[in-house]
């Protein structure tokens, strides 16, 4: 345990403080580059950076992150459905969830938000070893956003996945097709209102299927 001495710990806190300064600087540079398109940011000290932009400056934000912050590495892209679902268990069978809790009010996570669907993309700089998570709100009546393919070629499949899972349309994406599910599949599985029907008709097997230890009496 000699390696984990106190001097080391000091060094890591210094590095952590430097990293946080860099995060602040990144947020400021994105704000400069985007102007009105920039909404807000959130920093967890020693943790991560979240930036929220408007839908129209989505591609600009990615371009700025790539060219000005040096985030060459496309990490992932997805969406979040913020529709409240009590304990995530509203789709359970009666036996599993006898008293369903009332739904909480809709509440978005870091860097805030107003709408039910939010786009999330994470970009990473392999020189600074630091990433940024960019979010954008999607209005309820128009679930569409510009594609990032021109900025990051790898966004192609991630956008197809988001289209399939959430039903979000990507403007000028060349090839929005099913990626995982068979063509005749209906619905968008990762939306919170998509039920897992197997759970409705069948209780959690762990409840009915209790295995007794040797010598234990059954109920």
């Amino acid at each position: 345990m000699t390696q984990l001495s106190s001097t080391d710990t000091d060094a890591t806190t210094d590095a952590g403080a430097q990293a946080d300064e860099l995060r602040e600087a990144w947020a400021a540079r994105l704000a400069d580059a985007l102007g009105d398109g920039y909404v807000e940011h959130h920093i967890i000290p020693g943790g991560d950076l979240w930036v929220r932009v408007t839908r129209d400056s989505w591609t600009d934000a990615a371009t700025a992150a790539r060219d000005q912050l040096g985030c060459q590495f496309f990490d992932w892209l997805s969406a979040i459905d913020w529709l409240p679902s009590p304990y995530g268990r509203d789709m359970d069978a009666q036996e599993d969830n006898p008293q369903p809790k009332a739904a909480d009010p809709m509440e978005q996570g870091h860097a805030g938000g107003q709408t039910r669907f939010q786009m999330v993309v994470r970009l990473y700089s392999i020189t600074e070893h630091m990433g940024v998570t960019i979010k954008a709100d999607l209005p309820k009546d128009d679930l569409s956003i510009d594609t990032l393919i021109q900025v990051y070629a790898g966004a192609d499949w991630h956008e197809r996945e988001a289209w399939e899972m959430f039903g979000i349309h990507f403007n000028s994406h060349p090839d929005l097709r099913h990626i995982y599910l068979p063509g005749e599949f209906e619905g968008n599985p990762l939306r919170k209102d998509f039920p897992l029907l197997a759970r409705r008709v069948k209780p959690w097997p762990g409840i009915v299927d209790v295995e007794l230890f040797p010598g234990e009496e059954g109920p």
Partner: protein
Amino acid sequence: MTAVGADQRQQMAYVATQAADARLNVEVETEGMTLNIGPQHPATHGTLRLVARLDGEQVVEAEPIMGYMHRGYEKLAEVRTYPQVTTLINRIDWLGSFANEVPFILAAEKLMEVEAPPRAQWIRTALFELSRIANITLFLGDMAVQLGALTPVFMAFRDREFVLNQIEAVTGGRFHPNFDRIGGLKDDLPQGWINDTKQAMEKIRDFCDEFEELVLGNEIFEARSRGIGIVPPEVGLSYGLSGANIRASGVDWDLRRDGHEALAYDQVDWKVWTHPDGDSFARYWVRLQETREATHIVDQLLDGLPSGPIMAKVPRIIKVPAGEAYAATENPLGEMGYYIVSKGDLVPFRVKIRSASFSNISITPWLLKGVYVPDIITILASLYFILGDIDR
């Protein structure tokens, strides 16, 4: 008829060949052909389907079709409690199962603001590297078998068992350990395990040496993989290639060294291997070196293993405070990360799984353009994917 000078003769011969070539081109012009590989094909290890449009022997356009192994992890994680999710995510990359649990647990620990005690971190790291070895040894055999050498895969299966035995001795599971807990590990190491593991590492090093001669030193292997499927670093990064695939293109980036996660990699002395070529050979070479490096990491970790508890103080029923966190580690296949959104409940609100193979394989439509048919197999094998890791 006057005598024809040597220059002129040469010129005429040249024209004649050109004409013959042109005629040949007209005569053997073929219609495009569509080649379907899979969904169940040995070269796709699992159920990837590849539709390639060919012009003669060359690929005009190739498109992987996946989803044959899509199980809906991200949705299923929303209806399972945190400990139940670990059981599930073992099965994403089924060759290096333990490595799948670690980033999820780390992300949950970030949200709960707990940190595993040092001993747990060290054992975690050692098991992480063991699952890397279990994973990559199979790749080393498998890529050789796809290039026509059958023996290496038998050797890989043989020597992989030593590592699986060690993983099983600690966790009770050959494949799916489900050993990692929020705040530490389920159990401590069994007696005598450290010595056994060191012996196993010795065997794996022998295995690596053997493969270095047997496969990398093989003329046919080299001829079929050198210069095939070259990935330029900037293209690779924009497609999200990670792990050994991007290090084989000369990018010196490894989340074990450069990440900020609570693992014991900064306590041992090791090296990140890169290769400047970016071709299939380089990818194989980098993975082989990484396997050998992993054995050294395990040895050092086991030598310096700190004593102490293996579990931090966490409540019996785990409720993760509201918030968002992303944790990523350098898995055998590349960067694997989990983005957890919690609302303070027993179950996660949303889990986004960033799996390495999905991004790694997304470069194939770009990479397979214009290659010859046998090279499809080389390129797919060298990119190395696991279907569960693509489809989730």
